[in-house]
């Protein structure tokens, strides 16, 4: 991207400097570099520990029945009849799929407006500011919003689609910002040549700009999906939790993060082990999304 320290060819300078640098300064340099390296190593320790523990505990909980049975709720005595996480996996997939179906078109639409129409106008700046505001809102507050509007407001109870809406609010700013960045990278010359050939604006957008930006936008979308999939707080008072597998987004719906949260607070070892297994499942799903996002980003001609 830009020139880093590596562009300084240190060998000759280093030779010269060696004469000038006093032992005290050299010692200080060594100590400082040592502590920077130590800081980096410290930064990596938690990752190693988390991955190690997730694998050790999580793999122990995995089995065929773990993925094919619903949690039974019969957790008091522990043992083998506590069930698996089938409803949680399916619930997470459904809720996140609907959330993406809501957030992605709206988010990309707003990004297109910002780049193609709004540009630097005051209205566009205001929209950007509010998108930034959305980015900073804690996820539990999104849960409260959706609760106020869709649970209190309609006088009804929790439902899977309400969780999806909470997650889509969470995804929106990520989708908008990443799509905007990519759309800005589409060369102006491409747009101008299409316009010069007489294409109307909407065809320029749909036939030229969007296809060029597509891979980059998919990356942003997948990262947003990965973020939403791991969220617990917005689902607690919107989709609630249930035991049974439920394909109807209008009813209560289980999800992996909520199931893990419920299981963590259990005093029974078997249930906590199920939480580890579910956590490993969730992390694997999120990492896969991240991996795909990275691969697509690498293929993209932009950025």
């Amino acid at each position, binding site marked *: 991207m*830009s020139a*880093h*320290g590596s562009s300084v060819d240190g060998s000759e300078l280093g030779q010269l*400097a060696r004469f000038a640098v006093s032992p005290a*300064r050299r010692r*200080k*340099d060594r100590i*400082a*570099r040592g502590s*920077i*390296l130590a*800081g*980096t190593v*410290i930064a*990596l320790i938690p*990752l190693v*520990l988390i991955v190690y*523990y997730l694998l050790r505990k999580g793999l122990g909980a995995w089995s065929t029945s773990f993925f094919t049975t619903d949690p039974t709720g019969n957790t008091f005595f522990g043992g083998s009849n506590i069930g698996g996480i089938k409803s949680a996996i399916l619930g997470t997939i459904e809720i996140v799929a609907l959330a993406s179906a809501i957030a992605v078109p709206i988010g990309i639409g707003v990004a*297109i*407006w910002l780049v*193609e*129409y709004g540009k630097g106008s005051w*209205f566009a700046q205001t*929209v950007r500011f509010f998108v930034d*505001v959305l*980015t*900073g*809102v*804690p*996820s*539990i*507050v999104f849960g*409260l*919003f959706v609760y*106020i509007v869709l649970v209190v407001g309609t006088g009804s109870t929790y439902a899977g689609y309400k969780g999806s809406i909470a997650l889509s*609010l969470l995804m*929106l700013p*990520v989708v908008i*910002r990443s799509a*905007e960045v990519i759309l800005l990278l589409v060369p102006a010359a491409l747009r101008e040549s299409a316009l010069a050939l*007489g294409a109307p*604006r*909407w065809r320029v*957008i749909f036939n030229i700009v969007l296809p060029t930006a597509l891979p980059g936008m998919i990356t942003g979308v997948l*990262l947003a999906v990965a*973020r939403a999939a*791991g*969220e*617990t*707080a917005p689902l*607690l*008072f919107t989709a609630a939790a249930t035991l049974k597998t439920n394909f109807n987004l209008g009813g209560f719906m289980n999800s992996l*993060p909520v199931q893990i949260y419920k299981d*963590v*607070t259990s005093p029974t070892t078997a249930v906590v082990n199920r939480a580890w297994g579910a*956590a490993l499942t*969730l*992390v694997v799903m*999120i*990492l896969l999304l991240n991996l795909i996002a990275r691969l697509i980003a690498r293929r993209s001609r932009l950025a």
Partner: protein
Amino acid sequence: MEAASIPGGERSILERSPLSRLPDRALKLGLTALAALILALIVYFFIRLVGQARPAFAKEGVFGFVLGNDWNVSAEHFGALPLLVGTLITSALALLIGVPVAVASAVYATELCPLRLRAPLTILVELLAAVPSVVYGLWGIFFLAPKLQGAEQWIADRLSFVPFIGGGLVTIPNYFITGLVLAIMILPIVSAISREVMSTVPADHKEAALGLGATRWEMIRLAVLPYCRSGIVGGAMLGLGRAIGETIAVTILIGDAPKLGDHLFAQGYSLAAVIANEFGEAQGVHRSALFAAGLVLFVLTLLVNGIARVLVVRAARSSSSNGGGQTTSAAGTLADAAVGA
């Protein structure tokens, strides 16, 4: 765009019938409406949240709610000070522990590390961002907290003469362990933004420092860090915003005790945790008080994120005036992306 007619008198292919111009108008109108929808949505949410929080504020008074040191559900007293203090202590700890480590890893990745290691190192630090909050909570409470309890007790005993830190009995869930896990959680954002800002430092500055005989560390201290200061502070503030709003990991780790913990290793509560933990069975004023807690949390994160954004944007602008144009705009936008990812 208005078509020029061709001298022959035929209709130009550039000229469009009003009907074919319709999709253009519709698209522009539709997209503008979408953008306006975002604004309307946030304003609407804010108003509704204030409306729901009003009964609690009416009962306790705004200051009574925020600064009252008494959160007693059964007696219907709702003073959120213990929650606010819990949020602030844990987030401050997260910054104290997380930012130096994050900045060190960013300095190492951009200035000291062999080129070949740079990409893997970056990816590893960013992997931390892929771990969901609830998994941090699970790992923290079943692995980290029990493992560190002995060490914490040792520190508490040694520092028993220091108020607020030592002397007490260390519980497994406590402020310190919450702050520590939050530090791990904000590490990837702070590190990513610091790295982006550091990569915009002009090579001239660094070469000049080295050319004058500075050691590597002196170069970092004199050329790199001052140049990135506001960017790093902005990144730290974004991390702070994250830490303040973090819910599930905190709920699991802080112990959910609705009182002011009297020392660093005591159980406490936070604004976000109280909502997650009590909302399910809350009724009446209690529920309204939880909405009020959400409102305080919302305003707090707005303030912190607002300051952070000003700092990050200023950092990007100051470096672009130094001729780093393309890279810095990328840094600014990447910083935005990092906030989300």
